[in-house]
């Protein structure tokens, strides 16, 4: 009976996944053909690179927030699903890396003549000299922190369930990743509102 139930459940999952894929394909096709995507991205020459930077920052916001929740579980000695936090921490480190990579790419037009940096220096220099400069460094803090957290989780694995010091150390790394992400993301969003590339 149990075996039969498992088989039924698997069949339902396959059907659901197949239907969702078809729906995504049809929806995506209609969007590609008919959506005025360029209007959404804006007329800037650098709209694609800034869109990718924002996209990865958005993904990083999700993974860093999940990381904060996992840090709470580590800190409070709650039972852990190691496989789950391994995958989460690797995605967190990857999205962090991609956000920084895309940030470098979008930094070029930011600094270019006539770009936001010149605009700020001419009109409100504190925005660049204080907030942007701090943001660009705070963002870099997140990569070694997120990578170190992922490394500890993947390397020590099940030992995290029994070693309190290890749990606290890993939790600390995840909390700091979240903190520096929020600083960089918040300042980046505020600055982009004032003048984007």
């Amino acid at each position: 009976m149990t075996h039969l139930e498992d088989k039924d459940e698997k069949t339902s999952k396959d059907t659901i996944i197949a239907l969702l894929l078809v729906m995504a394909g049809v929806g995506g096709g209609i969007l590609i053909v008919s959506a005025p995507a360029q209007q959404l991205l804006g007329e800037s020459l650098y709209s694609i690179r800034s869109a990718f930077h924002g996209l990865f920052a958005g993904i990083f916001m999700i993974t860093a927030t999940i990381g904060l929740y996992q840090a709470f579980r580590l800190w409070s000695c709650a039972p852990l699903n190691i496989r789950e936090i391994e995958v989460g921490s690797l995605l967190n480190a990857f999205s962090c890396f991609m956000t920084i990579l895309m940030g470098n790419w979008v930094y070029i037009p930011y600094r270019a003549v006539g770009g936001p940096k010149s605009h700020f220096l001419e009109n409100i220099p504190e925005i660049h000299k204080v907030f942007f400069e701090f943001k660009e460094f705070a963002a870099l803090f997140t990569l070694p922190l997120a990578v170190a957290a992922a490394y500890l989780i993947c390397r020590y694995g099940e030992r995290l369930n029994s070693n309190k010091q290890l749990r606290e150390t890993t939790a600390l790394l995840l909390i700091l990743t979240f903190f520096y992400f929020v600083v960089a993301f918040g300042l980046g969003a505020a600055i982009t509102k004032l003048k984007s590339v």
Partner: protein
Amino acid sequence: MNTKTDLDKLGTAQAALLAVTVGILALALSNLGAEASKSFQISIHNIGKLWIPGAEGIGPYSGKETIALIAWLASWWIFHSLLRRREWNNQWVLAIFLIGIACATTLLWPPVFSYLGHILG
């Protein structure tokens, strides 16, 4: 590569933690150096240009990233070699880590590094 016994101690974790501290402090110090000295700023920009695509447009920031990356990964390798079969007092390692992060954050706050760069320059 860690053996099972290596992971019974915290040394591998401590190495990762200390390497983060070194990398972040290297970022703070390279930025301070660039603020204090124009020639240092040009030198680190040249380091960034060696390998980062578009480093000309990114500016000296590319060199600061490079220095931080090298310091982080090299120190990780060194600390890992030193600590993988043993461990230091974890309270001390955590204290060094947190004080290092706090110092780097303070040094990278623009009013602070502008002031220090002016004094050192």
